């Protein structure tokens, strides 16, 4: 007896009309999904995994169309169904959960009302009982105090909470198919685990089929029965999660597996076989530290010493500003929020230290204070024997000392001036603060830096939008090392990159550190990446340091419960 599959995608091709002609985002793919099954679609950006899901829901943009093949949902021909029929299906029979939950919700409509909209649209509740129903659904996605939260706007909720609301929206009508498109990207690991567990519980309880679209093989394998691997619009492999992990058959799957940071992997091991050998060669070819010993190398004092660093922000009260204008002075002690609460740590020369923690733990505030972009409230920041914490942020930007601390930012696109070419971006710090290699023409210096970070020289004339993510990351790194700094603060430098690109960039960072003798402060939420790159780890939570020590010890045998929780929340493939 062969049951009709819930979803049957046959030979699907999706085309987009772009300025440069027709682009095929998805080519001849076949995917089937049985009732109640959980399927993962894994691939890097541009693999066509999201486009596939849009085609299933038939919500492609105006420019996109299904060019070939068919999509059948419980026997209904999605490609040729009238729009009215499709609208009835969407939200009621198949729904979708999106990446970036805050943006996926209407910012100026109460979340409860948004759930009501869906319920009323699909006649799941009578108008007089719809509010109760919406509150009940909020309760079902385990939102505490649902009656209150019904009236909340998305900006008043945390990212994880917003994702629960999006799940509530998607599951309000108990659909038969749920498509989750990168549902936890950008969320903290512990939140990710809570959201994924919730999703699995709810879909299982209601016997829904789920498609989980993700770039994270580990996540897909941990939560799905079957995994489809996509590359450049094609399906390269379909197998059970266990089989994919134990014996991946396709070269691309193996490459993805290799590139995913995981316990037991080495930094070099992330690169594909042929590239890791090449990487060894580049290390040898790259210029060695040019003999010039830095003045204070002999002293064994750490490069950076942070002591009882504190940053307070005034908590914005609603009436406070008015109270200040009228009436007597408010109570003597204004309420403050401690973003960073008296932390102390050191970074040695040539050492790389990982600063990990979940969003809101104060790691970014800490890095901004070290970069002297914002002023501290209290404590000291000693850099190479000088108390740079005492120098006001505005003044510090013009000091020669500024050259010696540089930063690489999280978003390689947003951190580049869109009107600067790559060469101009790299030259920027040199033009502003002066080149340590005096007498060398700026252009030649840019080319040397480009060679150091492995950026082809013919790309130097391009603008950021003409470069790929990995290339932009290289420009950002070249800019940071242009002044030969002693310390680089890396703020999640690979969070926006695909795993294979991340593998290359991480290796590049390691090579540069060795050849230039720099120290890194590596801010990240990804413990697996930190494990590969860092000598020591600092775990932060709510502005305080929970635990710090050598990487192997902290991540291997954590002392603090919080570190253990963080480690446990990382999705583990079923091996």
């Amino acid at each position, binding site marked *: 007896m062969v049951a009709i599959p819930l979803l049957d995608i046959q030979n699907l091709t999706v085309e987009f009309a772009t300025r440069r002609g027709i682009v095929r985002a998805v080519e001849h793919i076949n995917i089937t999904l049985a009732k109640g099954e959980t399927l993962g679609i894994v691939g890097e950006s541009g693999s066509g995994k999201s486009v596939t899901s849009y085609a299933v829901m038939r*919500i492609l943009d105006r420019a996109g169309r299904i060019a070939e093949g068919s999509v059948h949902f419980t026997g209904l021909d999605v490609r040729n169904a009238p729009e009215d029929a499709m609208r009835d299906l969407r939200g009621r029979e198949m729904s979708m959960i999106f990446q970036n939950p805050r943006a*996926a919700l209407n910012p100026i*409509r109460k979340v409860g009302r948004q759930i009501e909209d869906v319920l009323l649209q699909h006649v799941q509740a009578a108008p007089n009982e719809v509010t109760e129903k919406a509150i009940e659904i909020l309760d079902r996605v385990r939102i505490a105090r649902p009656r209150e939260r019904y009236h909340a706007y998305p900006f008043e909720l945390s990212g994880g909470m917003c994702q629960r609301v999006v799940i509530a929206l998607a599951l309000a009508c108990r659909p038969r198919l749920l498509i989750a498109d990168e549902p936890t990207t950008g969320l903290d690991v512990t939140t990710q685990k809570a959201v994924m567990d919730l999703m699995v519980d709810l879909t299982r309880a209601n016997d829904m089929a789920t498609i989980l679209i993700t770039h994270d093989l580990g996540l897909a394998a941990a939560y799905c029965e079957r995994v489809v691997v996509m590359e450049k619009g094609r399906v390269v492999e379909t197998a059970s999660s266990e089989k994919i992990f134990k014996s991946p058959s396709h070269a691309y799957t193996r490459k993805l597996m290799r590139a995913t940071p995981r316990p037991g992997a080495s930094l070099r091991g992330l690169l594909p076989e042929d590239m890791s050998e090449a990487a060894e060669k580049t290390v040898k070819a790259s210029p060695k530290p040019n003999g010039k010993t830095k003045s204070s190398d002999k002293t064994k004092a750490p490069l950076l010493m942070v002591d009882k660093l504190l940053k307070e922000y005034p908590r914005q009260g609603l009436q406070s500003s008015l109270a200040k204008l009228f009436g007597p002075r408010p109570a003597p002690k204004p309420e403050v929020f401690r973003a960073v609460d008296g932390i102390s740590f050191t970074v040695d020369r040539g050492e790389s230290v990982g600063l990990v923690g979940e969003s809101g733990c104060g790691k970014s505030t800490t890095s901004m204070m070290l970069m002297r972009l914002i002023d501290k409230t209290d404590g000291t920041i000693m850099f190479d024997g000088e108390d740079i914490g005492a120098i006001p942020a505005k003044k510090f930007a013009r000091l020669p000392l500024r050259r010696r601390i540089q930063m690489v930012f999280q978003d390689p696109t947003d951190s580049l001036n869109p009107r600067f070419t790559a060469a101009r971006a790299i030259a920027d710090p040199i033009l502003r603060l002066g080149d340590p290699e005096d007498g060398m023409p700026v252009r030649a210096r840019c080319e040397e830096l480009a060679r150091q970070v492995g950026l082809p020289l013919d790309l130097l004339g391009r603008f950021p939008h003409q470069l790929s993510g990995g290339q932009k990351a290289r420009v950002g790194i070249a800019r940071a090392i242009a002044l030969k700094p002693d310390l680089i603060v890396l703020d999640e430098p690979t969070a926006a990159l695909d795993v294979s690109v991340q593998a290359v960039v991480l290796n590049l960072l390691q090579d540069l550190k060795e050849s230039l003798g720099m120290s890194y402060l590596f801010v990240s939420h990804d413990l697996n990446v930190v494990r590969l790159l860092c000598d020591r780890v600092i775990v932060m939570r709510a502005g305080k340091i929970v635990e710090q020590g050598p990487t192997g010890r902290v991540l291997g045998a954590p002392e603090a419960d919080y570190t253990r929780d963080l480690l446990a929340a990382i999705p583990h493939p079923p091996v």
Partner: protein
Amino acid sequence: MWSMTLKRLMFAIPSLIGVVIITFLLTRALPGDPAAYFAGPAATQEAISQVRAKLGLDKSLLVQFTRYVGDLARGDLGNSLTTGQPVVTEIRNRLPASAELTLLGLIVSVLIAVPLGILAATKPDSLIDHACRLVTTAGVSLPVFFTGLILVYVFYYLLGWAPAPLGRLDIFFSTPPQITGFYLIDSLLTGKFDLFRAALSQLLLPALTLAIFSLAPIARMTRASMLAVLASDFVRTARASGLTPFTVIVTYAFRNAMLPVITTLGMVFSFLLGANVLVEKVFAWPGIGSYAVEALLASDFAPVQGFVLTMAVLYVALNLIIDILYGLIDPRVRIEA
């Protein structure tokens, strides 16, 4: 919400003080000697200085300013030298005429421009999008006096549908009792429907002229803002939830796209209110713009000062209303304030 409103009001005080000082100084800096002007072309030097003393122009600037502020505090904006009427009375009579015209023009404009912008945004590069582009381009590139004259030529001279473009009301009608100063509203309040029709027929052509001119910024802003919102994630979510296109476009997209449109509306309104002199001239409209221009040409201080001050107060009030509207539409604004 209330605290925000109060705070905005308080921020308006310094700018109003600034306006008072600047209008006073500016009118003093105007070329031309009002005393010589009013004494007449044949006046002797003696007569001129007599007029000057009468006007208080022989005193120092500081004394003149204190007197001006003192009068202002009592709600006295001085008398117009050309008409001899108190400026307050004249403005009270003329401001409603301008406001009625501008408001109606703006309402007509919004009724056309907003749907046009929304349609153009939902179907980019379609026929309606091109039509929208054509209409808006034509609207801004034709000068208002030109569109005004064309409308008069066609609808009054050729077709005879519209009454003669001679002010707010045909001479056979007597003005309604002043309640709001808006003829349309006053005539309705007093139940005089024939008067309402007469006032409306006088109002239609000039209002249409203004509407054609103000169409462009509103339609373009609506289109651009809708395009941005329609491409956002939450609209995709709404679509994926199976909501009807109407709900998606109106409840989800348009409410979010409204904020920049409202800002544009405020700017267009305050611009039109003071700057539609040309329309007022073409239609012999007894508005505030032509009043100010005439006074300016006659070096008549008091009306100019009164005009600028009135406009400044209106502008502040308008901005306040826009801020409050913002707060009503977007809950995030309420918190930030």
